[in-house]
């Protein structure tokens, strides 16, 4: 379902290209490097996040995506390891896989997974693994879809993005990082989303883990 490879770019410290369903995102990480004066934080690592759409000029929609990714990545980073330094996270959406004026959930979920791979590729300290999954509930309110396709997404009553922090070899869910839901749903549906979303996140985390294993093989090929 999810295809990804790390180390695709040269001038940056960590990079990855991730394709999940019809959405393709490329992420690059540079850091810890010297921050500009106004970005510097006295005790921890400053984060500069840039999201660029596949069509047109970056607008408030991308600004919201940046804010959401920041909310997910900040608690997971080992921020106090790099005081007064800067990490640059750049996302380039190559294929949105959803109508941009109406939805941005599949792009958000792909960006979070890509951020995890790129951060690991760059070797920046993170305290736990995390993975994200996009869910949607179909018009009839019963069927819950994981990583819906564009057609299913359009017909869905509500769309949810779930990001979880995982521990112990991506088996145990440690904490909820982000749950963002839009549309028409009730409490019972939300709990069902959380429940199914957990299993899907664990499955995605295992797929991400395999990608990292390939990266490690490639990193020490000369040994």
């Amino acid at each position: 379902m999810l295809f990804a490879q790390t180390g695709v770019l040269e001038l940056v410290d960590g990079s990855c290209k991730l394709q999940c369903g019809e959405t393709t995102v490329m992420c690059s990480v540079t850091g810890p490097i010297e921050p500009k004066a106004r970005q510097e934080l006295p005790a921890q690592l400053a984060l500069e996040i840039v999201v660029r759409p596949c069509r047109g000029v970056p607008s408030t929609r991308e600004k919201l995506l940046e804010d959401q990714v920041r909310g997910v990545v900040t608690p997971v980073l080992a921020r106090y390891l790099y005081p007064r330094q800067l990490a640059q996270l750049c996302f380039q959406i190559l294929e949105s896989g959803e109508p941009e004026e109406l939805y941005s959930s599949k792009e958000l979920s792909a960006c979070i997974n890509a951020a995890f791979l790129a951060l690991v590729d760059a070797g920046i300290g993170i305290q736990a693994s995390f993975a994200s999954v996009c869910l949607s509930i179909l018009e009839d309110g019963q069927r819950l879809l994981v990583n819906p396709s564009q057609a299913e997404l359009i017909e869905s009553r509500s769309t949810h993005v779930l990001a979880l922090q995982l521990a112990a070899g991506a088996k145990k869910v440690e904490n909820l990082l982000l749950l963002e839901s839009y549309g028409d749903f009730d409490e019972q549906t939300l709990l069902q989303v959380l429940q199914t979303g957990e299993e899907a996140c664990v499955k995605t985390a295992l797929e991400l883990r395999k990608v990292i294993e390939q990266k490690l093989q490639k990193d020490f090929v000369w040994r």
Partner: protein
Amino acid sequence: MSKAVEVRPMTFYPEVLARIAPDLSMQRHLSLGLRPSLRASEEFRNVEISDGKLSCASKETVNRSGNNILGSNVLKCGKTMIVTSITGGVVEENVPVEQDDEEPALENSDADRASQFGCIYPVVEVECGRAGAPTDEEMTLSQRIYNCFLHSGLLSKEALKVSVGVKSTNADGQASIQYPDEKDSTDLAKSFKPRRKWTYVLYAKIQVFSRDGPLFELCWNSLIYALQTTQLPRAFVDERTTDLKIPVSMRGRSAAIRETFDILCDPVKFQPLKLNAENISFASNFAVIELDPEAQLPKDDDDMQVDSPTSVLLADIQGEAEEASVSSIVSVVTGTAGNMKHFKAIGGDSKITLDMIKKSIKLAKLRSSDLEGKS
């Protein structure tokens, strides 16, 4: 060598401590069972609203000419004041796939949910005495309100369609405007079927004064109140509109440019904006914060050691100390009947457990029914 320097503990006033070390001040308050805004942990701030008599369609006859505000709301919650004003415009729809009026739009069947709903374009301005480009917070707030409004299904596209009236001047030059759906309209008005379609476009300007904590919930509630007072002006086309064909030739290419007369808005007649009442929803925010054992105030040993809960759910975050020291936020937009429109939980540094989520949804429903009663 140097004489012993005795260190006197520094003491600060609560507000100063709140600014210097927000999380320390927060933990100190929590250890006493209080919170910096001195409200109970699940108590919301009171909200007062009025429509501010800004909109030109409000009951009192505000002078019509020049006032183009269609709906307004002034919301005061704690120290924060929010003024929302709704303005609008009429836009010709270039219909992608041609439809006759009778048979319903085949192409976007009911399956395609999100594109059936109308949207509103909010612009949030947090007045903090600094003019200049919108800050990141203002942009994310506007986009979040736009997304949430679109998916909440409060406004259907039909409600924004313009039913065009016709202005006819009879023999003695006295003009009268009839609208097809009005009872006393002549058959002429009913038979007037314009080929071109127009829709209303709604803009919302949300100004925030004396910001005192997270803003998304307050802006959303103020917008909902403002929309309930919104009236849309009727629009008509002059009977004698003849599409003037202006022959234009440019570098050997000549064509007749159709100069079309635009639609005019009726300054007198208004019709209320039809909202899907069942989708009306109100927002409330919560925060989860864990008690840090070291930062507790030294407990006087006589009171019995009750096992204080490790983490606390606070409702309606207010004040610098609370906002700066909290990173796990839950924001819920729900109708009174429990049909939620938007739910956002950010994990942050503390653990958000399942029953925290359940409790916040329950509180959000109560808050929503309380707010709905106000309008």
